């Protein structure tokens, strides 16, 4: 009984992280704020024929706008990429794990769909991939891993598994121990020039990074201290995503 009371208290009094830094939208990027998602797309997106979209689940108790800096920058540098940052009830993706599927059905002009998420959002993206095994070409995990009930080891899509050296919440040991739930993996680094192929996991450690710098919301309780700046960590994220989302 005490346990349920504690869960209820946390549930009702939980505070979500808001974006910390002031946001400057790149000139070439358009943003469509909708009740269920924030859509970032390039001004020239209509002229692109091989469009790719990333549906992104926010971390637990994190406002979806905290990821807008790297999402807008990614889109500004890659007109063929669109990002749909999901807005979920109570900022807890666990309540709406299948929400991303509705976007795939709605936007028919996108060639290829990817899904991803940060922390709890990554776990929920894995739930969606497990439920809809043919819907997405790839899965992007940021400081995240699938739950034991979502074994994706035989999934035929490709996985980009990004994790940070100083992450105090999803530490490297935990991430590595959950690798068995993902397709066979290889370790890559910034210099890697390989093609990302289906049925493979690409594990990339971000040196000096931490959990909170996958977004822009300051220091998170329980997180490690980053030895690189938020901008540096997110440059690495963008670099990997540009290669992966093709």
């Amino acid at each position, binding site marked *: 009984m005490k346990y349920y009371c504690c869960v*209820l208290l946390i*549930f*009702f*009094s*939980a*505070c*979500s*992280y*808001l*974006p*910390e830094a002031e946001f400057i939208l790149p000139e070439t990027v358009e943003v469509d*704020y*909708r*009740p*269920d998602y*924030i859509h970032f797309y390039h001004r020239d997106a209509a002229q692109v024929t091989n469009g790719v979209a990333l549906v992104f689940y926010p971390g637990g108790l994190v*406002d979806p*706008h905290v990821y807008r800096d790297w999402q807008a920058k990614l889109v500004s540098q890659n007109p063929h990429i669109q990002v749909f940052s999901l*807005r979920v*009830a*109570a*900022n807890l993706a666990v309540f709406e794990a299948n929400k991303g599927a509705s976007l795939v059905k709605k936007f028919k002009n996108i060639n290829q769909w990817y899904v991803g998420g940060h922390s709890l959002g990554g776990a929920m993206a894995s739930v969606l991939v497990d439920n809809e095994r043919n819907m997405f070409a790839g899965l992007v995990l940021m400081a995240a891993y699938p739950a034991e009930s979502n074994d994706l080891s035989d999934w035929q899509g490709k996985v980009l598994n990004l994790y940070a050296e100083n992450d105090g919440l999803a530490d490297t040991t935990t991430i590595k121990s959950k690798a068995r739930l993902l397709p066979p993996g290889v370790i890559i680094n910034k210099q890697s020039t390989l093609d990302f192929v289906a049925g493979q996991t690409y594990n990339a450690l971000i040196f000096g990074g931490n959990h909170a710098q996958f977004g822009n*919301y*300051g220091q998170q309780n329980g997180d490690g201290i980053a030895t690189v700046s938020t901008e540096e960590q997110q440059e690495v994220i963008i670099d990997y995503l540009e290669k992966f989302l093709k």
Partner: protein
Amino acid sequence: MKQGRFILLILCFSLHVSTLTAQGLELGLRNQYRISLGMELAPSWTGLALEAQWAFPLLSDQYELLIGSETGISALSSYSTLRTGLRWKFIQKEKSRIILDWNLLNGIALFRPNSLYEFGSEIGIGQQWQRAGRNDFSYGLLLRFSTIPGYAEISPLYYQTMIPVYFRWHFNKKAPHERG
């Protein structure tokens, strides 16, 4: 920490109010449905809320002053709010009443590093059942508008309309002749 202090303040306020001459304490659970966020219609389930309020007789048997607090989840965040309102029991029968509640809301949307001020209003209709020897029970439907002005710096979608469905238990004080 500011949020914690605010919640503590709400609890202290609530306990203090309970010692006054309220007609009774009402505890409720709300199931909330989003109707719109910003100007766009977007119906969906958005969360739950817990509420506690005290009803004070006002002028006649027909009206009550409502003071209470509520904590729950809306389309944008978790929140804690104080409520002040009026109740009109416009149809009273032997075992049931049809009630119209109107509340003003003043509170905070729970964010880090700083929570944001949230205010709004709601109006709704319900039915209260009087049960012999047991606590009264009521249920109803509200239409609620709320806004978080500070969130406008982040998104143009900073105001919302919801339909909360509530269930309340009424712990009414007994009249002197009922106390035996």
